[in-house]
Each structure stands twice: as C-alpha cells, then as structure tokens.
C-alpha cells in the first residue's frame, strides 16, 4: 500500500486528507497520480496542475521517482509559511 496525503487548498478541494492506494501496478509518482485521477474522477485532475508539488517520504520528488510498498506520498500546493 502507498499512503497518500493531501494538504491545504488541495485537501479541501478533494475533500480528503489521506487515503491508501494499492502499490500493484503503480511504480512511480506519476503513475500514482494517474491512478488517483482514474479512480477519483474529473475533480482529481487538480493533481495534474503544474504548481502541485509531490513529496515522497517527506522529500520533494519529480514524477519519475519510483514507489515502494509502504511509501508515503504527498501532494500539495505552493507553500506559504514564514
């Protein structure tokens, strides 16, 4: 299983903070995004926006980063702390 997290505006728009995704057939971050859009429907296209950041096990990664069973994958909008 991949644990998937969403934050801030994205969390509100998708109506979920966290979910579990089967690791089978989902070998990269980009593949996980496609699987989430396929399963969630049109609203989940939000995950494909250019400014959405992906973090794998709490480090920012690109779409080609490989996924392992048990990974934590987060999607979030541009940060605004400080």
């Amino acid at each position, binding site marked *: 299983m991949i644990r998937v997290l969403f*934050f801030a505006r994205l969390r509100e728009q998708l109506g979920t903070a966290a979910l579990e995704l089967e690791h089978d057939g989902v070998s990269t971050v980009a593949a996980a995004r496609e699987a989430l859009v396929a399963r969630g429907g049109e609203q989940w296209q939000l995950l494909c926006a250019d400014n959405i950041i992906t973090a794998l096990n*709490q480090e920012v990664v690109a779409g080609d980063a490989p996924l392992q069973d048990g990974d934590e994958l987060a999607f979030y*909008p541009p*940060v*605004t*702390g*400080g």
Partner: protein
Amino acid sequence: MTEARTEVRVQQADFDAGRELDELRLQSRRMGAIASFIGVMRDLNEGDSVSAMTLEHYPGMTEKAITTIVGEARERWPLGAVTVIHRVGPLQPQDQIVFVGVAAAHRGESFAACEFIMDYLKTRAPFWKKERTADGERWVEARAGDESAAQRWQEQ
C-alpha cells in the same frame, strides 16, 4: 569547527525571542555575532483587512525540510548554534509566526545565513496560511517574489 547545535521546533505555542537569543549566545563559544529574524502576522494582505489566520503544516516533513535548509546554510557559512521556531494553528494579527536565530563568528555570516534560511523556509518548508477577511476564509497565494528571493542564492 566542532558540531554546532541546530534546533528546529514546530509548535502551536508562542515563543520568547529574548530567551531564544540568550540560549544562542550561551551555547556559542567563539561566536561574536547573533542575527535573528521574527516574522509577524500582518492585519493586511492583498489590500484586505485580515482578522485571523490558521497555519497548516505537514507534520514531520516541516521539521525535516527546515533541518535540511539549516544544513545547506552550514555548508555555505561557518555557523555556531542555529534555532528555527515556526508556529502552526490559529494566529492573530501581531502574533509572532517564525523565529530564526543564527550565531556566527562575525556579523556577515550571521546576517547572510539568517536571510538564506528565511528565503528557503518560505519557498521549501510545507506550511500553508489560511486567512480570514470580511469576505470569509481564503488560502494565501504563494508570491513570485519569494521564489526569486530563494533563487538568487543559487546564482551566488
């Protein structure tokens, strides 16, 4: 240089900047300079009055991201103790949001590292501000100026 202390705290509670500066000073031998920055909540944004704010974060990653940023600062400048505190949860105008304190042998390194840490924190650490105005709540938009402030360090 011997291993200098890095302290990173993400907390709902307020902090006492005077006490943090004392800690930095007392933990830093041979350090002649301490630079600090405090980010404060403004009651105005994008021309609208802001009455309250909530800061969301990604628990675990925020601490990791800030620690990485401090590590990058240490690769650029010889630093003594460094403290970064970032608040989360509900905040009111004039509340303290963030504290960065950097000890170094001389002022140049402490000023530069303090600014570097803030520039990177603003663009890399996973925090999100949601503010309340007369029209309701809204997520604060990221500023292009913050990104260019961080990028200018890569050109140096």
